[in-house]
């Protein structure tokens, strides 16, 4: 069960607009084992969501996967036709979106929206779809799932709706779940419950999960490994403990410092000075150099990959040496 079943290699997803080419994802590579959670962390515009959409084959125009390979159990997904890919979506790779208030169609009952996730992939009698939907709803902790099936989205709370979305994603027992900030819109207690439930589903079912977020604090409780992205590129990757305890990339370190819980009361919150550079005119060099305290002229050139353990790597000219 521990083999790498999912691999992304050298992924480049660019958006060709009138203003120019936005290189939203640049040379991103990672892999995933069954039962493992990979956290992708970055601020808005870091390319983390576009990475998720690229895997789903749902990059919107004028965006395009320019190069790179996405492999599920050795099968190349980027070469599949739209219809072949459609048959994988939901069945082998499922996705959970950020805003639970927007992810369900307001005009359809929960039942209709869950059933279509099954019926689009296999012919199953309604009674069996019902059974499976109820089981999935129970698995994510929804009380009296029989009644919830007949509910419309507006009759459910935000947390309930996100559970319905997660249950829908679990329906077909996919190999991989991509969760794009699934708990950001929820309040903290619900967040913790949902994270706990998802973690146990991943472990029980032996799925892989990619958890996309800007919140390092949640990731530290959930992820096995973390990938830090900035301006479309990988900055650092490693086991969760490695990233949290010994960040090597100056950006990761700044990101950790800006987590509010590290502050004393009354102390000013730490922030990273400056803003992210435009994705339009990124040169060869490190994307973070304009905001980095350790930057030197060398940073104008493409940052080298430095390894600190078999799992811990950073792309930086001047990493923080332990």
């Amino acid at each position, binding site marked *: 069960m521990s083999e790498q079943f999912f691999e992304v290699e050298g992924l480049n997803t660019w958006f060709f607009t009138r203003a120019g080419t936005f290189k939203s994802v640049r040379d991103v590579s990672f892999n995933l084992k069954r039962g493992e959670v990979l956290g992708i962390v970055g601020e808005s515009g870091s390319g983390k969501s576009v990475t998720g959409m690229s895997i789903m084959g749902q990059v919107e125009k004028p965006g395009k996967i320019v190069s790179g390979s996405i492999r599920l159990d050795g099968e190349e997904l980027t070469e599949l036709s739209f219809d072949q890919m459609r048959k994988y*979506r939901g069945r082998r790779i499922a996705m959970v979106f950020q805003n639970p208030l*927007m992810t*369900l169609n307001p005009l359809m009952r929960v039942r209709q929206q869950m059933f279509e996730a099954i019926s689009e992939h296999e012919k199953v009698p309604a009674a069996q779809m019902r059974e499976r939907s109820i089981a999935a709803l129970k698995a994510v902790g929804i009380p009296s799932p029989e009644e919830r099936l007949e509910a419309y989205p507006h009759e459910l709370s935000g947390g309930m709706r996100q559970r319905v979305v997660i249950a829908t994603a679990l329906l077909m027992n996919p190999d991989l779940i991509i969760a794009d900030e699934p708990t950001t819109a929820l309040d903290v207690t619900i967040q913790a419950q949902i994270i706990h439930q998802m973690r146990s589903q991943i472990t029980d079912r032996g799925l892989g999960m990619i958890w996309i977020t800007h919140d390092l604090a949640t990731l530290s409780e959930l992820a096995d490994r973390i990938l830090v992205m900035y301006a479309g590129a990988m900055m650092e990757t490693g086991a969760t403990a490695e990233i949290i305890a010994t960040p090597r990339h100056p950006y990761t370190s700044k990101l950790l410092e800006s987590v509010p819980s590290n502050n004393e009361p009354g102390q000013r919150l730490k922030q990273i000075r400056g803003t992210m550079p435009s994705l339009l005119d990124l040169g060869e060099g490190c994307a973070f150099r304009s905001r980095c305290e350790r930057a030197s002229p060398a940073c104008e050139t493409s940052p080298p990959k430095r390894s600190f353990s078999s799992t811990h790597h950073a792309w930086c000219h001047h990493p923080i040496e332990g």
Partner: protein
Amino acid sequence: MINFVLQRLLQCIGVVLALSIVLFVGLWLIGNPVDVLISSEATEADRQAAIVALGLDRPIWEQYFNFLVNAMQGDWGTSFVYKEPVTTILLQRLPASLELAFVAFFIAIGFSIPAGLYAGLKPESSFSKAVMGFSLIGVSIPTFWQGMLLIVAFGIALPFFPVGDRGNVATYFGITSSLWTLDGWHHVLLPAFSLALLKMSLLIRVTRAATLEIVRLDYVKFAYAKGVHPVRIVFVHILRNALVPLITVIGIELGNLLAYGVITETVFSWPGLGKLLINSIKVLDRPMIVAQLTYTALLFITINFLVDILHMTIDPRVRSVMGKRAK
């Protein structure tokens, strides 16, 4: 749901009554129709006789009450000008207007919703751009001019369609209409297209805007992420949600078609209601004006009522809000 429908019906009746009072009082104050109707050489005695004959000597509330009781029995009074019951005159003209409006309505809907939907789904395609160009022309050209152009182009230069009048009529199921005959259809198509053009162009734009907005929403992306077939996504997820704002606009436009076809009816000398109202106002034919304005009001009230019901059928959120309010 039933509660709501009943409550809404009561409201509708209230609105009709309020409107009939406003109309009646307003018309009573506008001027004395007797001066318009009797010849200038009439004696004072003739004048008094006319006033009594028309019931204008009674107190205003009594006139209104009589009007209301009669109206409910289908007697809308006698036209001052035509000396015939208003109901008879209206019923002569109404079918022509209705058939023109309904044909125009189905032309407008039948083209604009598929075209607008396509333009919203594939905004970059050349067909979509052509559709948008067409709709821009459609909303920009004044109806009377566009009507005359159509007559010149398809009635005279290329005489595909007859111009003027309604063509043969026939009666089936107690309804006399030109839509029962081929000749009637031949006559109605050109004016109906002319009448439909503006509505069509408007509806294309509304449909496209609604579609563009919905395509971007997460529940559409989620449907794709579930592996749902694109055809199902378009018809079940996108179109149904686009219908929510569309139905309101369609309702208003249907009302406009039925009530305000004046220009098209004039240009195509269509024997409908359109010109009747204008003429009645000119000569202060009070019963005619009251009847026609009440017809227009009833029309819009009915359409609004139907739009509300449709909204409730389509959108469960409306249903729950309305259901709560009705309790």
